[in-house]
């Protein structure tokens, strides 16, 4: 499923039928094979993982001529592993697997909660966390979760591995720091402290719809981390809001939040309404983090 809120203005190819028109397809056997395929695609390479956004975009002819490099069968890029202070999440781990993972539920419950908001069961059965992050839809839950958790993204390229902090990964609307020929292979997230709280609040008109606005709250010994989805062209880390919350000033935090986001107006909600509900979501999340009834 793709985000009609962001795509609708470009969904106007004169009534073309809903059929994908890629330039070709190749199934990668392993990571080095995938790298070779991407390198041989002459700039038209496109990584296909779960395909839940890419195939929709191809069906709508928002993307044509792609040389598809199907990485979905590569062994070793899937699953969650415990690495003492962090969790390692393979890029091909499916949303449904993340929602069901005992390691995630215990050490990164924000991600398990996020899964309940992502689209619908059939999409969660195919969609992958790496795909969601590389796609970088500002209305998606996982990118905002990465910011709130302070995750590190691991990227494989022709020069080997590099790691990027989530805060440096998301750069624009559907735009990341992934370079041509690179593949996102894994994510590491810090394991939650004993008293850490991780909360996701969002408002959508129907279950599984893209949120009008959403907010992640992480409270750990070093302070609060607040991120938002659906309030701009990228997921947003609300730094001023975090400072106010660390001071214990909730009203100040709500004011700071409404000040530091610049949400769009569209057919789903006006900018003012999004700014308003962002503050409401913050109050709810704080109340929930304190164990109050929201």
């Amino acid at each position: 499923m793709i985000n009609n809120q962001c795509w609708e203005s470009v969904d106007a190819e004169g009534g073309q039928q809903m059929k994908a028109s890629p330039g070709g397809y190749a199934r990668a056997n392993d990571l080095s094979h995938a790298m070779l395929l991407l390198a041989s695609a002459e700039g038209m390479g496109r990584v296909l993982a779960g395909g839940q956004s890419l195939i929709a975009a191809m069906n709508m002819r928002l993307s044509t001529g792609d040389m598809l490099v199907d990485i979905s069968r590569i062994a070793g890029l899937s699953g969650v592993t415990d690495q003492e202070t962090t969790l390692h999440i393979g890029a091909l781990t499916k949303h449904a697997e993340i929602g069901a993972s005992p390691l995630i539920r215990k050490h990164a419950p924000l991600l398990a909660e996020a899964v309940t908001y992502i689209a619908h069961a059939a999409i969660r059965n195919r969609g992958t966390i790496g795909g969601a992050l590389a796609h970088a839809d500002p209305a998606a839950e996982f990118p905002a979760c990465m910011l709130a958790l302070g995750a590190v993204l691991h990227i494989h390229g022709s020069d080997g591995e590099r790691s990027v902090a989530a805060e440096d990964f998301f750069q624009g609307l559907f735009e990341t720091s992934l370079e041509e020929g690179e593949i996102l292979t894994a994510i590491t997230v810090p394991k939650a402290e004993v008293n850490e709280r991780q909360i996701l609040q969002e408002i959508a008109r129907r279950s599984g719809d893209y949120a009008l606005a959403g907010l992640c709250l992480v409270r750990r010994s070093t302070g609060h981390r607040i991120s938002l989805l659906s309030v701009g062209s990228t997921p947003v880390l609300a730094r001023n809001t975090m400072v106010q919350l660390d001071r214990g000033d909730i009203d100040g935090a709500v004011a700071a939040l409404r000040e530091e986001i610049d949400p769009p107006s569209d057919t789903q909600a006006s900018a003012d309404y999004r700014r308003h509900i962002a503050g409401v979501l913050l109050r709810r999340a704080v109340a929930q983090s304190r164990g109050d009834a929201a």
Partner: protein
Amino acid sequence: MTKVFADRIDIDLMVNGEPVEARVPAGQHVIDFLRQELGLTGAHASCEHGVCGTCTVRVDGASVRGCLMLAAQLDGADVWTIEGLSDSEAIRDLQEAFIARNALQCGFCTPGMLVAAEELLAQGGVPERAAIREHLSGNYCRCTGYEAIVDAVETVARQRAGQVQA
């Protein structure tokens, strides 16, 4: 362009318990393959961007959007459509409950709805009505208003749990 990328891809899979070999176009999605190449017209192609759920089929044990998976990705897969699930009588109780409760009118959404509902029922137990609605939230029905569908799914969950007579 480069030869490593194919316009047509050979796939070898199981569909409704029968082996299938085919050569498919790179851009063909699962639903067009099932409907146009294999004549399995039960699951429908409707919105074709993952919103409506009428294309829901079972691939390797899980419900998937047939419009959001390429036929080329089916190599080695085990696919079940409403035709196979009907012939094998695997969901006969669910189909009978849909009929008994008038949980369909035009029937366009029903094949996808049944695959989605069966995935929930296969988890066992008797889900709350809210959980049934949530699990079916990706399958649109424009006729029934959903109440009868939820009734039918709930009835079958109770029957399978031995709480009421079939």
